[in-house]
């Protein structure tokens, strides 16, 4: 460490000299003198010293290492945990696929009405009942409005099923 005499003779404001700062941080006698030269050294004087945690370095290192060993013991189970995660994912994927498949089947059945026995009336003996497969592939029309259409409704006996035939030249060919 440099002497106090050398320090006082060479101290410049705004110094970053390692030797000067080292002296400033260790020598109480020169601290007050340094303040008169450069007050910014006021807080700089705090640095540099080797600080030791309460209880000492050995106790500190011992604490850290014991915690590391505990964590090591915990993480030694990690591979098994990882496998379990994959198993869980596989089970979840299977369940999700099952649910998705079931919902698809349910939707398909909702669009395609169950086949019902068609009663062929005497007045409509030539009417061929539509096949469910055809209904599923054709566009579905919910509302229809036209001045040129001819609508023929097949009479029924109070059952829910009703056959309606629409004859309209302006309708698109695929309907």
């Amino acid at each position, binding site marked *: 460490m440099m002497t106090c005499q050398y320090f006082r003779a060479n101290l410049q*404001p705004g110094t*970053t000299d*390692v030797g000067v*700062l080292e002296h400033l941080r260790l020598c*109480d006698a020169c*601290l*007050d003198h340094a*303040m*008169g*030269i*450069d*007050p*910014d050294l*006021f*807080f*700089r*004087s*705090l*640095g*540099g*010293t*080797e*600080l*030791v*945690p*309460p*209880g000492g*370095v050995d106790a*500190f*290192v011992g*604490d*850290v*290492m014991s*915690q*590391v*060993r505990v*964590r*090591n013991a915990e993480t030694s189970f990690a591979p098994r945990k990882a496998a379990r995660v994959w198993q869980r994912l596989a089970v979840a994927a299977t369940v999700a696929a099952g649910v998705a498949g079931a919902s698809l089947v349910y939707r398909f059945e909702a669009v395609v009405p169950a086949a019902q026995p068609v009663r062929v009336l005497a007045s409509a003996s030539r009417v061929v009942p539509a096949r469910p497969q055809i209904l599923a592939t054709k566009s579905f029309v919910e509302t229809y409005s036209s001045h040129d259409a001819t609508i023929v409704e097949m009479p029924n006996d109070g059952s829910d099923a009703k056959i309606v035939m629409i004859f309209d030249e302006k309708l698109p060919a695929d309907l």
Partner: protein
Amino acid sequence: MTAEVLRMIPTNESVEPDDRQLVEQIRRGDEEAFETLVRRKTSKVYGLCYRVIGNGEDAKDISQLVFLKLWENLDKYDPQYAFDTWLYRMVTNVAIDFMRSKQSRDNAVNSNLRLVKTAFDPEQTVTVQRKEVESVFNVVSNVLSPKQKAIFVMSEMEDLRSSEIAKVLGCRESTVRNHLFNARKLMQQQLKRRFPEYARLWEQSR
């Protein structure tokens, strides 16, 4: 001295592995290498934590947390960068997080405020005592944000250059300089308000 004799003198490099070599050993599962690293860096880590946090027990807990994080994240360290920069980044992140949560937990008056002197004689000559500088720092640095304080500590007490601090914090050098400028300004204002006898040192030097 001949080259032959020089070869016989053990150098520090041959006796103690450097930080990067230790990291390599730790990655291979060498627990003793980690213990060596902890022992080597304890003072540095604890010192920075203590300066930023201002409390020995909290600083000790945070330092231990830093080392545990270090142990868990050592795989992420890229040896092409300086180990200390990476370590400092971890310390500042953990310390700043702690300070932020602490600030939100208790905005109560710091016990250090008892040091505030309301009356002082303008003619009184002031002798700066090292212990008192530390107490003054703990009081006046309370006005700084955790990040400002960390930057101030790294610059003024750990003697890191702005470029090094920027690397540690992952920000631009100009940002570091701005924080430093504001930190100094705020601290001088606090010093003037709470410790006018010391603030006079700055006024005298103008």
